């Protein structure tokens, strides 16, 4: 495996009671890329993510991360290795402040999380870094706001900040712009672009505007199997992809949005 490749799957397969949701997928993600995973509904994208993050055990196949076989690790182990996922639905701690949300992630690397005898003060030195991260997603003004009270788009931004706090090498984003208004879609797209500096991003997205504007590479899944792989320009012309996913060619670029 070349040093270029951060994540590789070989023959990755997931069957549900005889139904093959992910079928023999060989995928290489290059370090530093924004890699998009697209495909029709039910193609197996979310399942594939679930396999990578260990929320589901694979039926067959191997997952290699930075040269190590991580196929049989537990979810939390994988997360500590630097593979971090965001959820399809927004995932924040609603009754913590924005700052505390980010701190929650920073705290993990401190190694004091089982220390029930230490005061909360022992976490205060994390606030600087937390504010920095909030700043990166334009949330510095909301640091002490309870997260429930934030609008949807801000929550997504917060989630990204939290995810970044884990210093992930590889971020997995499942439909990061789903349910967002145009403004927010734009904001989040730029955010992804911004945070992709120095890390790798693998994302599922149905909004072709987003994909075409930021993805370096695209893999198309259909019925669990890879049908195309390459840069956007190339893949979007693939007749099989158009037929299975994009629909009539006129809509090619606008996609759904």
């Amino acid at each position: 495996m070349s040093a270029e490749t951060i994540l590789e799957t070989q023959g990755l397969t997931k069957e549900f009671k005889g139904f093959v949701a992910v079928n023999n997928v060989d995928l290489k993600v290059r370090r530093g890329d924004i890699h998009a995973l697209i495909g029709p509904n039910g193609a197996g994208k979310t399942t594939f993510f679930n396999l990578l993050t260990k929320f589901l055990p694979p039926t067959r196949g191997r997952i290699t991360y930075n040269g190590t076989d991580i196929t049989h690790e537990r979810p939390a182990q994988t997360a500590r290795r630097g593979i971090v996922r965001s959820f399809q639905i927004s995932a924040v701690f609603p009754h913590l402040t924005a700052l505390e949300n980010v701190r929650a992630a920073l705290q993990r690397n401190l190694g004091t999380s089982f220390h029930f005898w230490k005061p909360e003060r022992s976490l205060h030195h994390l606030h600087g870094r937390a504010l920095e991260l909030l700043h990166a997603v334009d949330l510095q003004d909301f640091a002490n706001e309870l997260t429930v009270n934030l609008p949807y788009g801000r929550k997504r931004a917060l989630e990204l900040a939290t995810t970044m706090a884990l210093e992930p090498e590889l971020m997995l984003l499942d439909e990061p712009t789903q349910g967002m208004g145009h403004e927010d879609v734009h904001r989040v797209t730029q955010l992804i672009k911004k945070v992709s500096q120095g890390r790798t991003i693998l994302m599922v997205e149905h909004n072709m505007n987003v994909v075409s504007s930021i993805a370096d590479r695209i893999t198309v899944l259909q019925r669990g199997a890879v049908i195309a792989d390459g840069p956007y320009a190339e893949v979007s012309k693939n007749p099989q992809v158009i037929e299975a996913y994009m629909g009539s060619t006129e809509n090619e670029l606008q996609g759904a949005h």
Partner: protein
Amino acid sequence: MAANELLRIENLHAWYGESHVLHGVNMRVNEGEVVSLLGRNGAGRTTTMRAIVGLTGRRTGSIRIRGQEAIGLAPHRVAKLGVGYCPEERGIFASLSAEENLLLPPTIAQGGMSVDEIYAMFPNLQERAASPGTRLSGGEQQMLAVARILRTGARLLLLDEISEGLAPVIVQKLAETIRTLKAKGYTIVLVEQNFRFAAPLADRFYVMEHGKIVRDFAQSQLQENMGMLQEYLGV
């Protein structure tokens, strides 16, 4: 005009617990029309739909469906007036198979789509029919949620973000479906983030902000309103 007015909302206020979300919504929908409700995240569009069906907390004002006041009615009575609601969060039932999900809503009136027609439209659903509802992929669940109310024969459809999470091909197919439904005389209220999807389908538009309707215009006035929409929605 008033003769075939199907839905008329006047001065509708709605609350979730303590929080006052709708501040006097006024709108009306005529029979056979497709009306689209636009607005930013959190503007109150979903809440309006839920308030019509009776799923919010306290509500005041007036909601007339075919002339009948529905503000005091329990949700199941509203449904019986011929209202089909497809919720934003899909509401697929985990303990029911995909097919059971599809067959769940009781038939309200004659003239709904048959199961065969539905399967022809969404082949994925037929393939996964025996699978537990929430084991379907996000998009498949979305298809199921829409298909489910097309079966019931409800003539007033409230569709909340139905194109969300769907592959472009399917979105195109949905657009087709809505045209067909309109042709058959269905009345549809469409809530969409996806402006490009809603724009060509709607006869009229309402724009919401902060729990109020701030603008309304017809399809023919779409071009001249683009500037305003840019401002409100960032389209």
